[in-house]
């Protein structure tokens, strides 16, 4: 009887040595004449325990971590291959509180299955959503997605079903589905984890989008910083095609849908949807003015569904379980779950999929375990580099699109970067402006020039030159960027800058009253 052992192949697990651990297990097992079947799964998203090795036992999967190659002989000595106790043992994986308290819908299979095994995918509910979509009329599929309340997970939170309806209702000989896998936001990695850990889920979501809107060709635009995700998707597409799930007749339904994966080239702005289209067309990633909406005239001028990886990967379960099932999670107009990503200075970084309504305090403290450094947490940036810095006084606000917008912040792609009290917020504000200088597509002046001025002004404030006047200048510059930018690059860079200034004026050398 062979022992099944799981060693993740997720980039982050690899970045901590998972490959060497897999080799050590194989070697040690051979030496001891123990037959092992090593499965390279995705990550469970508990990165302080990675490389997290799991052993299949009659009692379920038992977790050991973080495992280094030198731990492996000792693990075998202790009998870990039978699930025995060891100082690195955490008991049954699914009972680890960080995981047990989550609501994993989109991430149900990530870390559980072999990412490229179609059999595994099918055994865990894969393609049920697609099968149901095939049996429905396109307009019914669109309605199901609309009724689920799903909103775009890439940042702008636009209702997914409404976007699909526009594409469905726009007649054209050729339509496209373009998946935005640029995931440029710092502090985010859920798209990557899903593409590496459950790629068929994304392919299924795209195929459903295709059938629902009449699009026959899909593209996945993956950032070049994700070489592993790119290769996993390529392999998954090939296998899905060979299995008849993609191609001229999707799952034998007589309708076509195929997918090609393309690499970006290190431009943050290419995550903006129209810039991404330009890039897919082989051009400079300069943002397009809207209208026309991409849903009407998108890739190569054709109606195009553009969705984030998380949006598309949430569709299979919505179709499989029904709109009501998904909509029952969440609150207000934020329905379903969001895979939050805990990053930065936290003890327990990782992926926490929860219904909307969870608070930052719960995520940072109950899940995140407080700061990694042991110092007090001072702030968290939510929603990527264009998101606001949320001060500790606002940690109890429910994470919900509207409540966050009301306090001048955004949930965005759900990335959360925690900082302890050694952070210098004037420096972080400068960083945000400098990032805009670096990544602006150059089309509009407030963004291109304003950000350069912004860096200069913040430098003067830091240097203590005429602070009152320069702070006023910075605020007016931010107003110009907010109102005069074509896209959120220039339009939202003021969020991190002004939230830093508003909540942490002392870091800019001024007292609280002067900043407001």
């Amino acid at each position: 009887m062979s022992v099944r052992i799981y060693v993740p192949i997720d980039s982050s697990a690899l970045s901590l040595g998972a490959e060497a651990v897999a080799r050590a297990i194989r070697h040690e097992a051979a030496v001891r004449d123990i037959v092992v079947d090593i499965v390279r799964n995705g990550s469970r998203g508990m990165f302080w325990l990675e490389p997290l090795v799991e052993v299949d036992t009659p009692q379920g999967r038992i977790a050991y971590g973080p495992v280094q190659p030198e731990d492996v002989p000792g693990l075998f000595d202790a009998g870990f291959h039978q699930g025995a106790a060891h100082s690195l043992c955490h008991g049954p994986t699914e009972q680890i509180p960080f995981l047990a308290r989550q609501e994993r819908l989109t991430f149900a299979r990530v870390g559980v299955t072999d990412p490229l095994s179609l059999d595994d995918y099918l055994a865990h509910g894969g393609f049920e959503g697609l099968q149901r979509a095939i049996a429905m009329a396109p307009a019914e599929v669109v309605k199901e997605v609309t009724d689920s309340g799903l909103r775009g997970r890439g940042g702008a939170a636009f209702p997914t079903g409404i976007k699909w309806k526009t594409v469905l209702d726009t007649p054209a000989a050729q339509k496209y589905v373009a998946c935005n896998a640029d995931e440029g936001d710092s502090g985010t990695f859920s798209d990557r984890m899903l593409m590496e850990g459950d790629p068929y889920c994304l392919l299924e979501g795209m195929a459903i989008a295709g059938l629902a809107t009449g699009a026959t060709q899909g593209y996945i635009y993956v950032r070049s910083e994700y070489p592993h995700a790119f290769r996993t998707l390529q392999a998954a597409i090939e296998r899905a095609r060979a299995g008849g799930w993609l191609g001229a007749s999707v799952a034998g339904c007589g309708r076509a849908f195929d997918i090609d994966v393309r690499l970006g080239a290190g431009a943050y702005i290419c995550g903006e949807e129209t810039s991404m289209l330009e890039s897919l067309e082989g051009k400079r990633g300069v943002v397009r003015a809207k209208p026309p909406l991409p849903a009407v005239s998108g890739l190569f001028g054709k109606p195009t569904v553009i969705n984030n990886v998380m949006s598309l990967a949430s569709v299979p379960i919505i179709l499989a379980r029904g709109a009501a099932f998904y909509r029952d999670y969440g609150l207000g107009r934020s329905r379903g779950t969001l895979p939050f990503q805990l990053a930065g200075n936290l003890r327990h970084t990782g992926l926490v999929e929860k219904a909307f309504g969870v608070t930052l305090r719960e995520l940072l403290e109950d899940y995140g375990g407080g700061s990694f450094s042991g110092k007090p947490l001072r702030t968290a940036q939510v929603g990527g580099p264009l998101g606001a810095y949320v001060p500790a006084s606002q940690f109890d606000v429910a994470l919900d699109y509207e409540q966050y917008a009301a306090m001048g912040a955004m949930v965005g792609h759900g990335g959360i970067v925690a900082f302890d009290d050694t952070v210098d917020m004037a420096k972080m504000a400068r960083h945000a402006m400098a990032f805009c200088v670096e990544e602006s597509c150059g089309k509009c002046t407030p963004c291109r020039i304003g950000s350069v001025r912004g860096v200069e002004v913040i430098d003067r404030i830091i240097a203590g030159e005429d602070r009152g006047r320069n702070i006023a200048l910075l605020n007016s510059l931010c107003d110009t960027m907010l109102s005069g930018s074509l896209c959120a690059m220039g339009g939202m860079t003021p969020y991190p800058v002004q939230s830093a200034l508003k909540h942490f004026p002392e870091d800019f050398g001024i007292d609280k009253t002067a900043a407001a």
Partner: protein
Amino acid sequence: MTKETPSAAGLAALIDARRALPGATLPILHAIQDAYGYVPDEALPMIAAALNLSRAEVQGVVSFYHHFRRTPPGRHVVQVCRAESCLAMGAEALEAHVKAKLGVDFHETTADGAVTLEPVYCLGNCACSPAMRVDDDILGRMNGRRFDAVLHQLQQTEGASA
């Protein structure tokens, strides 16, 4: 990681294999950079001709994207993440250490041609900050000591294959 030297025949083959793709420019540029480590000057008119573009248009595309290099890099490329999550975990100190250790600034190559150093904004490894990339390997929870070990390893493998 030693790459081939660009040749007209090699470039033509890479371009021909991809010219019919919709939006072929980026796939072609990636294939060329993967093969040679950079996009050589002589590739631009060839791409332009194959895709029916002007040379200036191709030049404009290449220059827009941070990823594409116009000069040969060192035998290894080291990228240090400068984005927020890594900053929260000591990326600045790591960056300073790496620069001092290699004796180069960003966008420079060590005198022995071994390593080119580049900045990067997020590698999606934010749960394991600070992060780096060495060639195609992403590394997490880095510090000066771990970087020195990685560098030592690179030098060892170079020595062994030389």
